């Protein structure tokens, strides 16, 4: 019964979404207030019906209703309740429903927080968001219905992939989607402004908090995914340049550019066309990312051939959204204009340069991700793009970008002077360069790349301090919250870079065969293997190793990596044991039994400063939160803030 209610709700939501698209848009064009006003209740109602559908599916999962195909293939009765709930969005169908739900949630947020905006703007924004919703609801109902019943239900279900039975994986998809879908708001604002023909500072000011919040969620989603890969996959890596990761990283790069470009458009009225283009690109890449990961095209381009309906729908939808918005852009961009002027040396041009660098980075990732697909589609063989490609590009692009990141916030708008900047920042430059060269000697031996990375990280931190000190010294009083948010996010970038630099420079790893009582030394620690015992878990059976960590003859702690075999599927899974610390992680994963003497193969990692990577991401998120919660956004407009330095 619930499955039918869920499906019915989706159909009702689709009908409401169609109303949400048409009436407000026509009303905005003809100036009919009553028609425009339909947008808000329609958006809210649509959210409620999608939420009902999602609730039904979640309930079906929690209560193990295996008469529903989606439940039967992705969950089983042995699965703990919270993972059954997470299995709701573990499948293709369920994750698309989650996407639609989150779109509804953002729509609801727009209806709640846009009271101070012109009615035409709200109407158009809701109409654009509604049309995205129509696309997704149609896709769900026509090709990916999560509520299909089985004529002969199995007594128990399949399994949720053991790798996904993990707290981080419960949170990762919703966080990521909050980010992806959040860009639909900035996108809708950009499209509405193009249609309305008015792109001014107001438009940028309205778009900014939405974009920053979405970016904050996306940052969190990506960081969670990376953290999960680190401790769950057992290889000790935290980023693989896997197409699935790239799919989420491209919107992140572009939206980071968008945040900065929006700031310039709001404060200086410059970069207008570029900002609109970035808003379109950020959302288009989010859509592309969703479909790349969810359509199965990455595992095989032939996934399209096995289910051509889905593939054709996706291509058409992407074509309409991306092509349509670019056409609109081409038609209207002339009227938008470029906006204010600025000199070659100015904060604007530093920001523009960094925008271009971020765009180049995103384009390189796009090339590396899509090229293998094109080649395969064309039948020209099969290939993949190795991580060294991405690493080379990122070092080349990020070095100048990080340098400018230090200069930008201290430079003047419109017209800055290079000699003056050089005087203000010379000590910061000298300090970060010298410290960058010296510190690696103290850590464990000099390496040029480590020096470069550390210098850049320090440069960002020290210039942030200089900027703050100058502002306070000049009696500019307490700074707005958004300023602290920006600086905190920048420091987060510095912490992230320091982490990446140090772990890449100094990590060590050993695969060893260990007999009971054997000791292996790595990174100044001794690892003593005391054998493996059998342990039963909720839905698995595990071999659990006991390994003692000894430093300078003293026992530090005991770690217990596991090898699990899941009852439902019979799949093996390596459960790592990690001892985290501020300066290093010790990371153990269990291989297989070797020979007769109860010996096992064990992988031992020493990972210096690896947690700084995620700490940096957390700082960036806090920074984003601070910036978005600035008073000038939360308070309704009316009192216009004065243009700041």
């Amino acid at each position, binding site marked *: 019964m619930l499955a039918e209610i869920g499906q019915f709700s989706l159909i009702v939501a689709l009908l409401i979404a169609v109303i949400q698209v048409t009436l407000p848009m026509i009303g905005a064009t003809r100036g009919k207030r009553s028609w425009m006003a339909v947008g808000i209740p329609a958006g809210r109602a649509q959210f409620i019906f999608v939420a009902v559908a999602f609730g039904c599916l979640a309930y079906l999962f929690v209560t193990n209703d295996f008469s529903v195909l989606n439940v039967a293939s992705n969950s089983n009765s042995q699965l703990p309740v919270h993972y059954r709930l997470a299995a709701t969005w573990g499948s293709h169908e369920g994750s698309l429903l989650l996407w639609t739900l989150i779109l509804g949630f953002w729509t609801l947020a727009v209806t709640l927080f846009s009271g101070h905006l012109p009615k035409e703007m709200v109407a158009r924004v809701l109409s654009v968001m509604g049309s995205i919703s129509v696309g997704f609801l149609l896709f769900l109902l026509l090709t990916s219905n999560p509520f299909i019943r089985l004529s002969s239900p199995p007594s128990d279900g399949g399994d949720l992939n053991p790798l996904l039975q993990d707290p981080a994986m419960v949170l990762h998809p919703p966080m990521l989607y909050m980010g992806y879908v959040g860009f639909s708001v900035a996108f809708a604002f950009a499209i509405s402004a193009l249609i309305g023909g008015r792109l001014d500072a107001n438009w940028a000011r309205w778009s900014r908090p939405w974009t920053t919040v979405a970016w904050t969620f996306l940052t969190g989603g990506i960081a969670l995914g990376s953290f999960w890969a680190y401790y769950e996959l057992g290889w000790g890596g935290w980023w693989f340049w896997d197409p699935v990761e790239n799919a989420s990283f491209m919107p992140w790069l572009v939206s980071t550019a968008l945040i900065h470009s929006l700031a310039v458009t709001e404060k200086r009225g410059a970069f207008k066309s570029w900002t609109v283009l970035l808003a379109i690109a950020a959302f288009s890449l989010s859509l592309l990312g969703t479909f790349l990961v969810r359509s199965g095209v990455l595992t095989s381009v032939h996934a399209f051939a096995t289910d051509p309906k889905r593939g054709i729908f996706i291509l058409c939808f992407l074509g309409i959204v991306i092509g349509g918005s670019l056409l609109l852009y081409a038609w209207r961009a002339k009227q938008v204009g470029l906006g204010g002027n600025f000199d070659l040396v100015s904060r604007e041009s530093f920001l523009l340069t960094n925008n271009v660098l971020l765009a180049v980075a995103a384009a390189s990732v796009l090339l590396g991700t899509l090229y293998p697909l094109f080649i395969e589609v064309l039948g020209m063989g099969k290939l993949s793009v190795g991580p*060294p490609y991405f690493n080379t590009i990122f070092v080349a692009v990020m070095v100048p970008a990080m340098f400018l990141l230090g200069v930008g916030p201290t430079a003047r708008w419109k017209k800055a002077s290079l000699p003056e900047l050089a005087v203000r920042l010379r000590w910061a430059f000298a300090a970060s360069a010298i410290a960058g060269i010296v510190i690696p000697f103290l850590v464990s031996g000099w390496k040029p790349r480590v020096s470069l990375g550390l210098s850049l990280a320090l440069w960002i931190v020290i210039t942030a301090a200089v900027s703050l000190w100058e502002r306070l010294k000049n009696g500019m009083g307490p700074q707005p919250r958004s300023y602290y948010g920006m600086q905190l996010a920048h420091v987060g970038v510095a912490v992230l870079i320091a982490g990446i630099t140090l772990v890449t420079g100094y990590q060590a790893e050993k695969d060893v*065969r260990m007999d009971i009582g054997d000791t292996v030394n790595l990174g100044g620690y001794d690892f003593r293997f005391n054998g493996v015992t059998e342990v039963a878990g909720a839905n698995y059976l595990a071999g659990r190793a006991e390994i003692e960590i000894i430093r300078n003859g003293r026992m530090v702690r005991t770690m217990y990596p596991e090898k699990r075999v899941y009852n439902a599927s019979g799949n093996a899974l390596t459960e790592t044991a990690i001892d985290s610390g501020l300066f290093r992680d010790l990371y153990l994963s269990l291989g297989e039994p070797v020979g007769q003497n109860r010996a096992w193969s064990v992988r031992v990692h020493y990972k210096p400063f690896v947690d700084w990577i995620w700490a940096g991401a957390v700082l960036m998120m806090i920074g984003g939160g601070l910036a978005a919660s600035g008073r000038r956004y939360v308070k309704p407009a009316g009192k216009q803030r004065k243009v700041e330095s």
Partner: protein
Amino acid sequence: MGFIVVGLCSLGVSAALVLSAFNKNLVFFFTPSQVAAKEAPTGRYFRIGGLVQKGSLKRDADGLTSRFMIADAAKSIPVVYKGILPDLFKEGRGCVAEGKVAPDGVFYADQVLAKHDENYMPPEVAQTLAGK
């Protein structure tokens, strides 16, 4: 004017850098039959994919070096890998290895790729098994 010149120059340079890095890091995929026919380059990294032949997996005394055969419908290639194999590596299942082929025809793998799903079969493998 200054902007346009600076912009065009940097765009040109970055495009050249990107493309050269791209070209150097393309990893091609070959089937065991192609490798047996010497179509794969020696001295360059590439990927080989197929099924792990049943009964072919052997371990050296060190417990870490594995030797196995990756096969398609026609040919099989000996593979040597030192390290811990991924969870989903099993005889009779699909597998992709990345590394170099030695002049004696043995493939030395640096990486054996684990896919996140036990039902997953590399599409290339499925294709080669189907007889292409």
